[in-house]
């Protein structure tokens, strides 16, 4: 870039126009936008699949789809939501916000950034294309336990494996980029312990990604060779072990759930202090709690496997280690509470989402604690109780935090305030329907309804019908959200640079909408 020094007006460049702007872009804001649109598209596709699931479960009996397609829907819904909606959504937020929050002109590795995004649409398309292949798409659950996913799986499984590999490449490159950016691109004076919590949580998440995505790649590669090249990693007849798959999968899978929730903690830790007009109560303890959760996430994974026939010593260890996660998680909830306490709160839409997050994530956290108790998990395991649990942490947790982030930062991205009235309709509609959707699932799970079944006995009928009605309402609320997004992009009240009265941080020092190039001269952080 030696020419740049002589090219005085280079900071006046706007965005190039046309389709090629998006294909060739190395701008963190463009790439963040691409990630967010991709995630939202996937959210709607995965949501449509959830509607099929809830339609089939509306009543006992087989009504809408056949059992095999039902299994395909639960599988694809999980995969699309985890790998297509939540993770890219969080990466989109990271791309937009991390450079703005640490005073960097862009991500450290802009070309790789472009590549990590552009892998995604191809991986997603390949994954979705399995639905149209002979034998149908993957129908073995998003956890794809062997041997159902190896010996007994449809031919399209090999495409699923390749799609997972590609999604993994994308995530690993995204994570490397975030670590490189955070370590090298901070503005002068922005020490690590001055970084906004959103940056901290993503920084820690990036290490989790680098540690576990290769493990997932290993698991699917072993599946691939078991299916096609005569190996027996997961086949006892050849000296392998089907439970080995679960060990490898959950060594990825448990940190994965924290990959989806730690950035959410970061978002909420930004929003609550802003609207409480009060500093986050325990900044450093929040950082330490995040780091402890990340560490613990590696050593508790087999609590997903209490019923697989683990030795009792293993069960005891994983039970003790698992319930210990409640400690740093409680610290986080207490800190948010203490931040709100004696604040001067207002309740704009982002704050509403953040408060809903604190309440509903706490419910999901408590059911998680209950399932950590191994003997009780012998009953809870693989029922709708766990379905309710992880939807509370992932929908009202991770997804709600992305909604909160949208309402919080969209004025900075678009230059327009989001219509408060529409935002509040979206919020109340979602928060009521999501509880009608998922709260009864606790009951039917405890009462004995296994997960992943297309038909059920009659004692579960009433709650399922209520849950489905909640589901349809929640689905419609997200279609309404499309209108909110488009309206905000097209116009609305002009946003000031600061946007929110109580907002602090570098991203609020630049104009709204954020210019195409920001912080070309690093700001000074006191």
């Amino acid at each position, binding site marked *: 870039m030696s020419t740049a020094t002589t090219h005085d007006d280079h900071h006046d460049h706007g965005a190039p126009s046309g389709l090629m702007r998006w294909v060739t872009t190395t701008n963190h804001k463009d790439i963040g936008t691409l990630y967010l649109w991709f995630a939202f598209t996937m959210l709607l596709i995965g949501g449509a699949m959830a509607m099929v699931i809830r*339609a*089939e479960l*509306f*009543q006992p*009996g087989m*009504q809408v789809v056949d*059992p095999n397609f039902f*299994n395909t829907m639960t599988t694809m819904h999980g995969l699309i939501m985890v790998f297509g909606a939540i993770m890219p959504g969080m990466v989109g937020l990271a791309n937009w916000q991390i450079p703005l929050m640490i005073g960097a002109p862009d991500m450290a590795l802009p070309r790789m950034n472009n590549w990590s995004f552009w892998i995604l649409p191809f991986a997603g398309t390949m994954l979705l294309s399995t639905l149209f292949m002979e034998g*149908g798409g993957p129908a073995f659950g998003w956890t794809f*336990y062997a*041997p159902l996913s190896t010996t*007994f799986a*449809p*031919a399209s499984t090999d495409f699923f494996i390749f799609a997972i590999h590609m999604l993994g490449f994308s995530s690993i490159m995204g994570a490397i980029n975030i670590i490189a950016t955070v370590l090298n691109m901070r503005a002068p004076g922005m020490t690590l312990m001055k970084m906004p919590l959103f940056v901290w949580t993503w920084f820690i998440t990036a290490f989790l990604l680098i540690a576990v995505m290769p493990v997932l790649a290993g698991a699917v590669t072993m599946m691939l060779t078991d299916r096609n090249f005569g190996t027996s990693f997961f086949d*006892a*007849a050849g000296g392998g072990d*089907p439970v080995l798959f679960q060990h490898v999968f959950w060594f990825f899978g448990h940190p994965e759930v924290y990959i989806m929730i730690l950035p959410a903690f970061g978002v909420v830790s930004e929003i609550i202090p802003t609207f409480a007009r*009060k500093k986050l109560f*325990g900044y*450093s*303890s929040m950082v330490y709690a995040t780091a402890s959760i990340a560490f613990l996430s590696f050593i508790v994974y087999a609590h997903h496997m209490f*019923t*697989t*026939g683990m030795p009792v010593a293993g069960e*005891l260890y994983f*039970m003790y280690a698992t*319930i210990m996660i409640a*400690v740093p998680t*409680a*610290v986080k*909830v*207490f800190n948010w509470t203490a*931040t*709100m*306490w*004696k*604040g*001067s*709160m207002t309740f704009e839409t982002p704050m509403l989402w953040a*408060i809903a997050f604190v309440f509903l994530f706490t419910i999901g956290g*408590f059911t998680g604690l*209950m399932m950590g*108790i191994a*003997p009780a998990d*012998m009953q809870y*395991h*693989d029922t709708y109780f766990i379905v309710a649990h992880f939807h509370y942490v992932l929908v009202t947790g991770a997804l709600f935090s992305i909604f909160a982030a949208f309402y919080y930062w969209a004025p900075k991205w678009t230059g327009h305030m989001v219509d408060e009235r529409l935002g509040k309709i979206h919020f109340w509609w979602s928060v009521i329907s999501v509880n009608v959707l998922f709260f009864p699932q606790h*009951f039917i799970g*405890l*009462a*004995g309804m*296994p997960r*992943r079944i297309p*038909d059920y*006995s*009659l*004692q579960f*009928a009433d*709650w399922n019908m209520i849950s489905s*009605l909640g589901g349809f309402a929640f689905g419609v609320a997200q279609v309404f959200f499309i209108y909110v997004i488009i309206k905000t992009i097209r116009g609305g009240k002009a946003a000031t640079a600061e946007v929110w009265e109580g907002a602090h941080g570098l991203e609020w020092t630049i104009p709204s909408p954020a210019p195409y190039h920001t912080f070309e001269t690093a700001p000074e952080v006191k």
Partner: protein
Amino acid sequence: MFAKTLKGALYSLWGAVLLLGAGNSYAEYPINLTRGVTDISNKVFDLHMLIFWICVVACVMVFAVLIYSIFTHRKSKGAVAAEFHESTTVEIIWTTIPFLVLVAMAVPATTTLLALEDTRDADMSIQVTGYQWKWKYDYLDDDISFFSVLTTPREQIEGDAPKDDTYLMDVDNPIVVPINKKIRFLITSNDVIHSWWVPDLGWKQDAVPGFINDAWTELTEPGTYRGKCAELCGKDHGFMPIVLVAKTQEDYDAWVEDQKDAAAAAADASTQTLTMDELMAKGEAAYNTNCAACHQANGAGIPGVFPAIAGSAVATGDVAKHIDIGVNGVAGTSMQAFGEQLSAVDLAAVITYQRNAFGNDTGDMVQPADITAAK
């Protein structure tokens, strides 16, 4: 597909009308874990309630503070933000208290877990084997062995007949156990991972192919206890229930004798010769119970997953090859070896049925003796 979807949507709409209007026929809103009928299930239930109430109390405390704060510390009420933040003392307190609560929860959890996993000194052993999508029970002490398959008729599942109270919870041969005996279950699988779960016993245990897991129970009351497969095992995962019948020792002994007599009768029957009509009638029944889940009631199969019977090379070709597949299965696929699952009579009947139904019209008859010869 669309016609079916539309039909389903109309059904769903009708269901909503029923629910909101005239009340509904099920009217059951279960909300809690079953207490169960064994000592262990009671311990698990008590533990569940203990941790549940601890969570409720903690939840209420946190939520109360949050709600109070939300309604009091508002800018619109003139609240001015306080300055305080960062307190090591407070952080230490709210780290220590949850830790102590967790220790208090871990103690009863540990004793319950140790009791639940103690399968020593059992009075009898039953091997439970998961198949796609049925269970097999082998009584290791009594030389009894049988399969247990869902008996809920297809018409009820498809919505063409009213559903029984025990919809999807009935099987042809329930597992029968005596009361007041410590029974050890040895649980394994023939194909994919299943999970054997009767909530009244207080636990579930995965059935892993190639490995044997154990679990135990001791029932005190005669009765019928129902459960389900709890681990996704393929297309009909939702259709492989468990029915466990506990009997007094006398009744159990009588049942054991009946089973042995029935096995002897079945062995005798394998030498008889049946007419075409008898074979077709028995064959249709056996087909719908054992084959229709994959090959479909109309024999069309599911393209790319389960081959068709109608017009297939196997069902219209060499009889010996067809018998071989029926008896020995096809290695590396979902096609099981039915030689060990069905009697010679049923297998002869079902193969005859397959060769003459669905427009296959080969005219071939297979007799039980042909099956016995092929085993």
